């Protein structure tokens, strides 16, 4: 197990190296940040000075070396827009997004588990059809539109919830619901199909022949084994927090890392964007590792060698 974790961690480092290389290359190949910083009437002298200040006058290999040296010290440069270290801004905004994550998780699990279990239990019958259709529908609905629809229903029509910002606990409901529903759909579908697989297995038949009540079989024998997809999607949800929140934070004016990334893209704040992409990749690699390790605990048959 330890060797497995070590190997995966090493693989992650290699992947991360490729990611940073791509990020670095993209930044130098496309668009010159100096042009964006300076007004149109800037002199050639200003131009050179800024270039020197940003270290862009050095050979590309040296720039790469400096980039990695600083990155290992936790210094990813200053944001062009905020004129402050990007890591500082990141850690300032990160808690806001992190606070949203458990709520999204709760909502998606709260929807997916009951629906998935019901659908599997009533396979092919009416409740299954309803639940499956809801999941298919949920997967097809773009989350930005869902957010806008929720704002109309709850903030404009019924006036019970705020349309944006993060003032008070009520503000968490709509963003949480929007993100939660889009994750619940795929979670429910996976849960349903893995429940079906487990229900037709030998040990469930044995449990049934022993005369155990259905409820016991469902909870003790099937659920635990069927939980694997929930862990998978849950991990994906956290790993994709950036991508998911990018849209939802934009819709609900939520001051987290999603909104920050969106701003970084549109202001061409390259150092900031660079940091966001690297953070997103680290989160993704880390969560995938955590999910794989959790599999081992949930299902002792999965052994890593």
């Amino acid at each position, binding site marked *: 197990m330890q060797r497995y974790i070590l190997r995966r961690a090493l693989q992650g480092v290699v992947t991360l190296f490729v990611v940073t290389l791509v990020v670095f290359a993209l930044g130098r190949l496309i668009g010159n940040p100096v042009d964006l910083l300076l007004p149109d009437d800037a002199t050639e002298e200003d131009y050179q000075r800024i270039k020197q200040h940003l270290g862009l006058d050095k050979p590309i290999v040296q720039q790469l070396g400096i980039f990695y040296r600083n990155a290992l010290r936790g210094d990813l440069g200053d944001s062009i827009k905020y004129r402050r270290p990007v890591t500082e801004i990141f850690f300032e905004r990160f808690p806001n997004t992190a606070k949203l994550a458990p709520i999204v998780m709760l909502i998606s699990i709260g929807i997916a588990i009951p629906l998935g279990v019901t659908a599997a239990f009533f396979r092919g019958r009416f409740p299954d059809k309803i639940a499956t259709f809801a999941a298919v529908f949920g997967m097809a*609905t*773009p989350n930005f539109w869902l957010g806008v629809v929720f704002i109309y229903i709850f903030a404009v029509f019924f006036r019970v919830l705020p349309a944006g910002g993060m003032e008070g606990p009520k503000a968490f409901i709509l963003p949480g619901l929007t993100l939660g529903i889009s994750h619940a759909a795929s979670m429910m579908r996976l849960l349903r199909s893995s429940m079906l697989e487990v229900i037709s297995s030998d040990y469930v038949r044995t449990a049934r022949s022993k005369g155990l009540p259905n409820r016991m079989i469902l909870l003790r024998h099937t659920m635990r084994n069927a939980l694997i997809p929930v862990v998978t999607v849950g991990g994906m949800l956290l790993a994709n927090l950036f991508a998911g929140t990018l849209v939802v934070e934009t819709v609900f004016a939520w001051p987290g890392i999603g909104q920050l990334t969106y701003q970084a*893209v549109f202001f061409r704040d390259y150092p900031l964007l660079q940091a966001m992409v690297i953070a997103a990749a680290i989160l993704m690699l880390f969560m995938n590792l955590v999910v794989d390790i959790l599999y081992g605990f949930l299902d002792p048959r999965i052994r890593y060698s």
Partner: protein
Amino acid sequence: MSATVKSETRFPVSIIQLRRLMRLPLVPILIIGVLIVAAAFAPLLTTRLPNDMSLPDRRTPPVWMEGGKSEYPLGADALGRDILTRIVYSARTTAIVAGAALLLAGAGGLALGILAGYLGGTVDGLIMRVVDASMAFPTILLALVLAVTLGPGIMTVVIALVVVNWAGYTRVIRGEVLSVRNRDHVTSAVSIGCSQRRIMVVHILPMVFNTFMVVLSVNAGALILTEATLSFLGAGVPIDTPTWGGMVADGRRYIATAWWISAFPGLAITMVVLSVNLFGDWVRDRLDPRLRGL
């Protein structure tokens, strides 16, 4: 035995064939058909242009509501542009962008998957590391970065969608190639001295083509959603090109007074993605039910 059954039960056989046809997902096919017709014949379906403005008519509600006008069946947006016309023309944008991206990403991913799976070794290692790295980026983030750095344009969106999509095909196809590369027909092709290119094109490609079609059809819906998200965020497609995502974004500011500006284009996205997904499920069940997990 089978011959007699065949001759005796000609009528039941045709009923079976009919039922097989009936299992076609009719509603999704109908909606996809409408999308394609709208995309192909947009100028014939509506006399107006998507950017025709009429400021006095701005935010006209849909025709069934109080104040609605028959010229604007689904209402007008904040600049007095007909929403129905814009939805029809956006179908064209979606069909072109998503269609091109799907084909390019699919073809590229298929080729790389076959190369990685069949050649193995360094080529495989190299391709798969790039696949891992590109899958370590959240889709939307990567597409957004690309779309903004490349500047607005239809091609930009196509490129961004291809870059975020190809790796999925490569991964699945490589796995399939690994499982067929040691089949008898392949080893005998090797033993009679076929070139590697011939083996990959003639002996491997047909074996993985079903899987490829399944991944293609299962992916199409997600691709359309990514396109819609990009245009909602205002990245990629030029402002004067109507898109469903862009229309939802336009209406966001007027959600309190004119919900129809955002509602109908969003509904169009949902219906189309839903249909494409259901159609994809049908293709998968027909061609390769093993791939249910995808």
